[in-house]
């Protein structure tokens, strides 16, 4: 009589331990997924940095640098725009709900209508039309992915923000102001598709 009870008890304990082990393993997996998701949300890329070299009644001169995904400087030059609020226009193209691309497209200011803005895309378009700010990315890994990105970039260069794509232009309001000599970075969050302006150290 005692033997079956003992075996039953042993089986129950074994099943309990097995269940607990798997319960803990599922927790561990979920923690890892959540950590990966938090890291993805926090991830940023910096395609553009700029420095105000001068600002006055004649306008604002900006030194612009473009970077690829490894942070290599792929182009830099100076532009002057009228006004005091240089504004960087970005096209945001959602690939998937949690995956977005951002392309710097134009530079204008508070006194210039956006359609009269200066084109930025020519500075990072490769010979075949590939946007070099995505060098060293998965889009650069295969000819098919590269061709798809070239196609998307071509549409954006023509001013077409198809489907869920939209523009998001960043500027510092005049009362907050850019400081001459300071370097500012435009960070982009691929997860949410939002660019953000940050003053570097």
């Amino acid at each position, binding site marked *: 009589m005692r033997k079956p009870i003992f075996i039953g008890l042993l089986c129950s304990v074994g099943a309990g331990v097995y269940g607990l082990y798997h319960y803990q393993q599922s927790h561990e997996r979920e923690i890892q997924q959540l950590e990966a998701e938090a890291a993805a*949300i*926090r991830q940023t890329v910096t395609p553009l940095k700029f420095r105000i070299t001068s600002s006055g009644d004649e306008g604002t001169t900006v030194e612009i640098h473009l970077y690829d995904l490894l942070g290599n400087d792929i182009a830099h030059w100076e532009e002057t725009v009228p006004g005091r609020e240089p504004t960087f226009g970005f096209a945001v193209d959602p690939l998937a709900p949690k995956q977005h691309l951002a392309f710097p497209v134009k530079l204008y200011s508070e006194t210039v209508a*956006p*359609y009269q803005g200066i084109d930025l895309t020519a500075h990072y378009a490769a010979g075949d039309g590939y946007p070099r700010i995505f060098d060293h990315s998965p889009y650069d890994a295969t000819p098919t992915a590269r061709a798809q990105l070239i196609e998307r970039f071509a549409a954006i260069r023509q001013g077409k923000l198809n489907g869920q794509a939209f*523009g*998001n232009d960043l500027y510092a*309001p005049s009362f*907050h102001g850019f400081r001459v000599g300071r370097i500012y970075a435009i960070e982009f969050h691929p*997860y949410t598709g939002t660019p953000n302006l940050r003053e570097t150290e």
Partner: protein
Amino acid sequence: MFDDLFLPAAQTLRSVFLPLSHSLQWPGTLLKLLFFTEYGLILLFGLYMTAAIAAGMQNAAARKASGQCRSCLCSCAVGAASGFPKTLQAAFKLWIVAGVVVSLQFVSDTIAQSTERICRLYEMRQVVEQLSEQTEIAELRVVERRCGSEPDAEDCPPDQVTTTVEITFYSGDDAQKSLVQRYELPGREVYLASLIFNFDRSLFATGEHRNLCIPYALYSERLPRAEALRIQTSEARDIPIYYQRDDESIYGLAPQIFRDRAEELMKILDSPEQSRKEGIRTSQGILHGSAIHKILPVGERYTLYLHQADGLSLKKNASF
């Protein structure tokens, strides 16, 4: 859901078993080494033999005198043999006590680790929820697009196109739409200029702060921002309508800090000259402008979202 319900229990268990596990760590490890490893058992066996022989030797002289043993060696051996049962009993008791302590340490360790994992899981969910949180700010809809006095056409000269846009703000607590406004702009593309105040991410990941957004003007691809149309974001109070929430609704935040910052931003907008003189800067984050824009198809509704992970995005409203 299961973990959410049992989180308070897990926290209580953790608060009990984590200190217990820590306090039992040294004695438990020592006892495990002594009683449950071969080296420890050899050592204990040696100690036990020594104790048994010592106990036997204590009565060696008496045994010799009583004639139980003739030689010293005999008296020692008999004494040791007579001491065996007692020391064996004591050793067995010690082994039981060690087993209980080691088991207790194992159980408290397991419970502490499990509850720690549940709490960690809950915290991570909170962090991800905070980071991926997005607030509905406003809905945009192009009501009409015209070419002069005629309906819009593709061949219409760009300088003759006008767009009438309707902006509707979501009010805070129940995300009801309110404060509907209509504006007419030259051109096709609607630009919504907003001030964004980004707190440091380390602050809002813990739920202490949230990013703020104040849409304040509309312009277009043909209308410079300096000539933008100022929009209304609140009815009577200073705080924009989508931030007028009950304290309970301000998700995981210090409500007063939130309201103070929102009011501060509104004051900046109301008196930019004064703000420029004062040199508005903040040690907690950066203030910047963001102009979301798109050529919105007539009649389609788009929602403007503010993301906790920085900045604004625009999404077409899902249809049924």
